[in-house]
């Protein structure tokens, strides 16, 4: 093979699927009702013995039938059981692909399609708790990104109730729940969530979880007008927010806002430049409306 021939270029971000009827994001109540209907439940243990029972029953029946078709009965039952098993496996594989596709839609921020897909798939995965959890997480993150924070909190609560307290995933969800609470003016709820996280992680606040925690603390500082505390909380923002990757821009943006309020304009400009290096100002303002002030000042 000719090594000098260039490899095909990696395509750009996959576009959204074909447009469909818009899917209206559910209210908190509608989501709670849907989740209650689609509560995950394991299959009863006896179900796995049904195929064996069917074959045994057919074999017993064949004793009472003298004709040739009576002799074929157990074989037919065996074939039927095998066919059903294969069909069931194919269905499960298809559902798993659909769940993965839904997660990818959410990652690519095709919110409408991701929400619709997760909503319609939920009733079909009630016997698969892992996939069920993934879909509820998609619903929660998508609703949060769309600004429906009350409904997002319902999804996060649903997941938190089913996860062990110290689970890393549960802690990340708590951070997101805290941010959602602060952004929808439930300051006490947000503070309670942050305290719970603090009690678990203690002083180990590095890594993605620590970065997310500090972002939530900054949101709290901004919402409660404790700007100086917010600035003190993040002495080395580049190191602190680095584990979040591109999303670290939110932390830098919030820090810029706090610095601006404390009158340190140079440091605020520096932090805002870091934030906009990672994400455009319009995107930062969309995610956290309070940052629109910074964007307007920067573009003025």
């Amino acid at each position, binding site marked *: *093979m000719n*090594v000098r021939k*260039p*490899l*095909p*270029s*990696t*395509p*750009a*971000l*996959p576009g959204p699927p074909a447009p469909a009827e818009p899917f209206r994001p559910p209210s908190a109540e509608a989501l709670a009702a849907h989740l209650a209907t689609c509560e995950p439940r394991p299959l009863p243990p006896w179900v796995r013995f049904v195929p064996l029972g069917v*074959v045994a029953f057919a*074999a017993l029946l*064949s*004793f009472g*039938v*003298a004709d040739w078709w*009576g*002799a074929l009965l*157990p*074989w037919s039952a*065996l074939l039927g059981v*095998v066919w059903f098993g294969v069909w069931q496996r194919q269905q499960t594989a298809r559902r798993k692909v659909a769940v*993965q596709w839904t997660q*990818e839609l959410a*990652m*690519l921020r095709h919110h409408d399609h991701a929400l619709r897909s997760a909503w319609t798939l939920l009733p079909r995965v009630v016997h698969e708790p892992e996939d069920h959890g993934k879909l509820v997480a998609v619903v929660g993150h998508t609703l949060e990104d769309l600004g429906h924070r009350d409904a997002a909190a319902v999804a996060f609560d649903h997941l938190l109730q089913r996860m062990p307290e110290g689970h890393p995933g549960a802690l990340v969800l708590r951070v997101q729940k805290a941010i959602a609470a602060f952004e929808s003016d439930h300051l006490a709820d947000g503070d309670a969530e942050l305290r719970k996280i603090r009690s678990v992680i203690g002083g180990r606040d590095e890594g*993605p979880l620590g970065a997310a925690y500090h972002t939530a603390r900054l949101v709290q500082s901004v919402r409660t007008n404790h700007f100086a505390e917010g600035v003190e909380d993040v002495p080395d923002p*580049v190191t602190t927010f*680095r*584990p*979040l*990757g*591109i999303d*670290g821009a939110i932390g830098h943006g919030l820090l810029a806002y706090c610095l601006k309020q404390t009158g340190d304009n140079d440091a605020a400009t520096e932090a805002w430049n*870091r934030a906009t*290096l*990672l994400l455009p100002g319009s995107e930062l303002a969309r995610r956290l409306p309070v940052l629109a002030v910074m964007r307007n000042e920067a573009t003025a």
Partner: protein
Amino acid sequence: MTPTLTPNPAGRPAVETDGVSGTALPTFSPGRMLREIQRDRLIRVALALAVGLAVLLLAGWLPGRAGVTAGWGLFVSALLVLAVWVTLSVGNAKAAGAARGLLVMVEHQPDQVEQVLPGLLERKALVGWVRVMLYHTWAALRHRQGRHAEAVSLCRSVLSQPLGPGEGARPSVLLLLAESALESGEMVSAYEALFATHAMPLTLGQVLQRLGLQTRYEVSTGADDAACQHLTAKAELAELMPGNLCGATHAMLAVSASRRGDAQRAAWLDARARLLCEPEQLEQLREQGLALPA
């Protein structure tokens, strides 16, 4: 298992191989997998012949003798076939499930995988694709341990076999091969593996992984025009990666943009890379010529 684009793969500390760990699996030789597949096939054929003979005896010859009815003979035959089928299916399903589970464990518990895998490989009468999946796990383990030449050999052996129901794993084996080949400087193998992935559907995670690997291949081989093609779209796509990988991809694209004389975009990419990469990671990339000088 998701192979990772590491900033300094050669310098990554290998997993401890002294003491108990790392001694359970021998060094891989390509003939071993083929021998085991042939042995499994022989056992299965012998078993099928034995069952067929038993069915002939029970359903054809025995009825009418010693008070045995045709119905009874067929009933016992059905049970025998069912028992053998269930035993083989359960054994294979367990091995396939264990291979999937071990693949997930490789990243964080390689020592445990090293201990468990030989037991699974010793199982008999496995169908071909299940055994191949076990070798896929072995390849991922060697990749994780930094034994890239062996990982390349394992991946090639795996890809030479039909994967059957495990066909969905082919893209991840190819990406594993591409990364291990890049680590061990086998650029032709890396090219072939990356080229093959363009002919098959990938998940979003695999597309991101290929973007990182292909960028590294192109920057390492001086294919700067190819690396800078659709640069903005590539940077956008890289934003979906975890922070350190996103940073590494930006650093590599900055090198290509700089070599092509696109100073403005090189500066933008480099500034982002500095925000996203750990200083040590950036230093390691610089040592390999995959990031702009400080």
